[in-house]
């Protein structure tokens, strides 16, 4: 799985140019931390990678195919979780979201063993999202990460709102991933996210992407 970005520029309708001529690639085993100021375009870049937004110019390809033209099965190599946890969750309660992930990963006859979920949220799978806190919704969006180790993770601010236990658990999941050679691109401002987890550091600044050594 590889993302290829060539001369990517983007501006929201009526807005000034947010991203200018970005060129970079992501290999399946890259562990990338993307940083940048608020409003610098980090989340927008992820939306462009996933084909949710169309570039103003340039191209974004996933495995050689334009992201905007990907079919559903071509997304099976990526686990994307957006900046808003609620917007990333499906249905009315966490169980609905888990069922959809099960369907996506294992088909109709597959199973996710819910007894293995190492999170207090496992007791709240039938609680409506409207009754969950922001942190719990974020935890819910991260809940199934260990089940999708074979996918490339594109996570936008995955630790925002998490309590200490969940932050530590997320760091542990990422450490396991780093040890197993799994790839990920994480957008985060969280200083607690250990830099040892990553092998590439990107900084988005004034519409340009800079690789930090």
């Amino acid at each position: 799985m590889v993302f290829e970005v060539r001369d990517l520029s983007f501006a929201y309708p009526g807005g000034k140019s947010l991203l200018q001529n970005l060129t970079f690639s992501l290999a399946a085993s890259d562990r990338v931390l993307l940083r940048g100021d608020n409003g610098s375009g980090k989340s927008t870049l992820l939306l462009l990678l996933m084909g949710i937004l169309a570039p103003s110019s340039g191209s974004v390809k996933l495995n050689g195919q334009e992201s905007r033209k990907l079919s559903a099965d071509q997304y099976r190599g990526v686990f994307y979780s957006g900046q808003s946890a609620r917007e990333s969750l499906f249905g009315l309660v966490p169980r609905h979201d888990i069922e959809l992930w099960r369907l996506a990963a294992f088909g109709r006859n597959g199973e996710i063993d819910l007894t293995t979920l190492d999170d207090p949220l496992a007791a709240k799978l039938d609680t409506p999202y409207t009754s969950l806190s922001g942190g719990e919704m974020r935890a819910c969006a991260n809940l199934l990460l260990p089940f999708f180790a074979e996918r490339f993770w594109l996570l936008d601010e995955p630790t925002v709102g998490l309590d200490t236990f969940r932050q530590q658990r997320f760091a542990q999941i990422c450490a396991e991933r780093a040890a197993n050679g799994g790839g990920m691109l994480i957008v985060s401002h969280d200083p607690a996210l250990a830099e040892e987890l990553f092998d590439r550091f990107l900084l988005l600044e004034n519409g340009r992407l800079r690789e930090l050594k």
Partner: protein
Amino acid sequence: MKKLHPLSLIFLALWFSSAAVFVLRLEWLGIALLLAFLCNLLYFGFSGKTWLRPVVRMLPLFLSVLLIQALFVKKGSLVWGRGWYGIYSAGLQGGVAFGLRLLILFFSARLLLKLDYEDFDAAFHAVQLPEELGFMVFYTIHVLPWAGDRISHNRQLLRLRGVELRELPWRQKLRIYQRISLSLLADLLSRSSVQAIALELRGFRSGGQRTRLHKRSFSWRDALALAFIAAFTAAFFIF
């Protein structure tokens, strides 16, 4: 057109949609459609992308209604016949009228959708109606487009996870649509209560003095638009 007072624009939209519902004669429906289209053109400019695509999407609905009316309505004069079967004028007229009505409603709705909350507030304030009513009308008008966006968002969520809805068996599809509609309803309810609280917190009340940055008043354009409506309504009743 863009300088019209929001109240005039609401009147125009209401007038067009009333015409769509109450006018029976095809030629008058055609005129109302033309006027609604012209209003859209003046207001939004000529952008085929924004109105042509939804109109093309509605085509199968128009054609199926036209077909059903032509097949089953046996009133009026015979337009075409062979053997035991015939197509009658009332059936054709009914089908065409349905298409025209739907298009008029579509163009009226587009006019209303362009108005934001400030516009509804200004319009309702001009006729001494409380802000809450303006808010409720604004909220109701935007419910359908919002629901459409939510459905698209949910379909996108499926696609991004690698689930192709078309490939699923109908039972599974129904289950997913059930989940989508349930979450839609829940979101709608929670969103409306959040909006109501936000409104209260900003001190919106039905009475008392309010601070306004800019008060929009009626101009000659509004008088012209209203006179236009009155003239056409009178012409409709006379002829």
